[in-house]
């Protein structure tokens, strides 16, 4: 136990030195993404808005699910879901992608997953700006229940980081992880009620989704806050906390077991 604490203390002490590097790596990811476009960072906000607009038109004309305030329903859900998949997918690739750097310099490998998570969080911030625009245009009031939203986000960040870290380690050993994950997220997308109501699912599937689909926990809690103007349910908050704790633990465990050998497989 004591040995473990010393290790943690050392890691934190070391880690503080790398905070400026971390900021730099996060800025790098954002810069590289938008540098060569004319509108640049405007895309960060514009892109989610346009996608939402198209989906709103498609789903309110073609399928009639009778969801009140559909644009907000859709945007809130999509914003949460795409954070989970973008962040965990980015973290998954981060270690393999930075292989050349790992082979030439000596920095703790964990800065790459952290930087990737950081840039996903920044991107999430842009989505929130776009979301605010949607709220204004649809005339949706904001109640003081939003103060619970940061807690929901924190759970989501931790879950996505932990899950991504586990995938990142798998990806070093078996590069197919990347492709398998792409297929997996497609299934995940359709199994998360983003553009259809939960009630549409058959009973058994609904039980699976509400209890075992982590992305859905965060989706539903965001809708509680922004759409239903109520506190996220205790059950969901608890599930979110549990799933983030479990995946964070598994991810960190896998990373700490593998870190010594990663360089040999990069």
């Amino acid at each position, binding site marked *: 136990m004591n040995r473990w604490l010393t290790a943690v203390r050392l890691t934190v002490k070391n880690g503080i030195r790398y905070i400026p590097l971390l900021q730099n790596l996060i800025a*790098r990811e954002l810069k*590289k993404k938008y540098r060569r476009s004319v509108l640049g960072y405007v895309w960060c906000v514009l892109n989610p808005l346009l996608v939402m607009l198209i989906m709103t038109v498609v789903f309110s004309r073609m399928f009639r699910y009778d969801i009140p305030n559909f644009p907000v329903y859709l945007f809130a859900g999509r914003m949460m879901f795409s954070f989970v998949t973008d962040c965990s997918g980015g973290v998954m690739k981060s270690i393999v992608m930075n292989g050349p750097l790992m082979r*030439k310099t*000596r920095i703790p490998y964990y800065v790459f997953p952290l930087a990737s998570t950081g840039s996903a969080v920044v991107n999430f911030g842009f989505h929130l700006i776009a979301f605010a625009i949607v709220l204004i245009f649809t005339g949706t009031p904001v109640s003081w229940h939003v103060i619970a939203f940061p807690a929901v986000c924190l759970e989501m960040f931790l879950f996505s980081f932990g899950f991504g870290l586990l995938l990142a380690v798998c990806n070093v050993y078996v590069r197919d992880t990347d492709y398998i994950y792409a297929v997996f997220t497609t299934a995940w997308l359709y199994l998360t009620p983003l553009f259809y109501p939960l009630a549409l699912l058959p009973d058994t599937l609904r039980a699976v989704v509400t209890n075992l689909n982590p992305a859905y926990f965060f989706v539903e809690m965001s809708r509680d806050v922004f759409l239903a103007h109520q506190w996220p349910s205790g059950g969901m908050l608890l599930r979110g906390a549990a799933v983030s704790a479990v995946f964070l633990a598994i991810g960190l465990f896998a990373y700490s077991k593998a870190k010594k050998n990663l360089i040999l*497989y990069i």
Partner: protein
Amino acid sequence: MADPIIQIKDATVRFNLDAQRHKSLPEHLRGFLKRGSRFQEFFALKGVSLTVNRGESWGIIGRNGSGKSTLLKLVTGILQPYTGTVAVSGTVAPLLELGAGFDDELTGRENIMMNGLILGMTKKQVMDSFDDIVSFSELEQFLDVPVRNYSSGMRARLGFAVATCARADILISDEVLSTGDKVFQKKCEERMQDLLSGGTTLLFVSHSADAVLRVCDRAMWLDDGKSVMTGSAQDVVDAYLNRN
């Protein structure tokens, strides 16, 4: 007087050649079922020992694939020894095999900052040395061009300039000068001499015997992962050149 800054004792580095092959999932499964064939080991260093004292400059010579870069990675901490020990008591600025881990998409300016931070400098230190780095690498015109458009010599210049400004205790240089032109090589050697007289320790890998003799006072000859000879640079280089 003797103040060892690097102590390598009987170090062995093992690679798993099997891990380096690009494998697909079916191959993995097959390998998993036939356990034996999963590990194909290869020793890049076989029981190498080396003690470097503070302020010394060591040349490491040997044929292609003899383990020179591997030895430097061991000192940098990128690789861990499979058996034996490596103790380094100081900061290391590594310059390994062409380019110091630059990001192709970023400009020279951004890479200077990134590289400095990676080498453990603070933002302020990088800013303070910025002009020095730029003038030394003679890349004023190209600062805002992505590094992907640099020639290999230009990358080497920039990498060398940043690494030597990091003021690390140990400078590691792995054939970095080979792509630079004569004028720049000379400039780099002068910079290394400056650092050496300031107390920096140098590990220098080069295929140019002359360069080793100019820069280093001690040398190690590696062959097939084993240390053949260590001693004064002159003796070791002579022996190496006269091998049959």
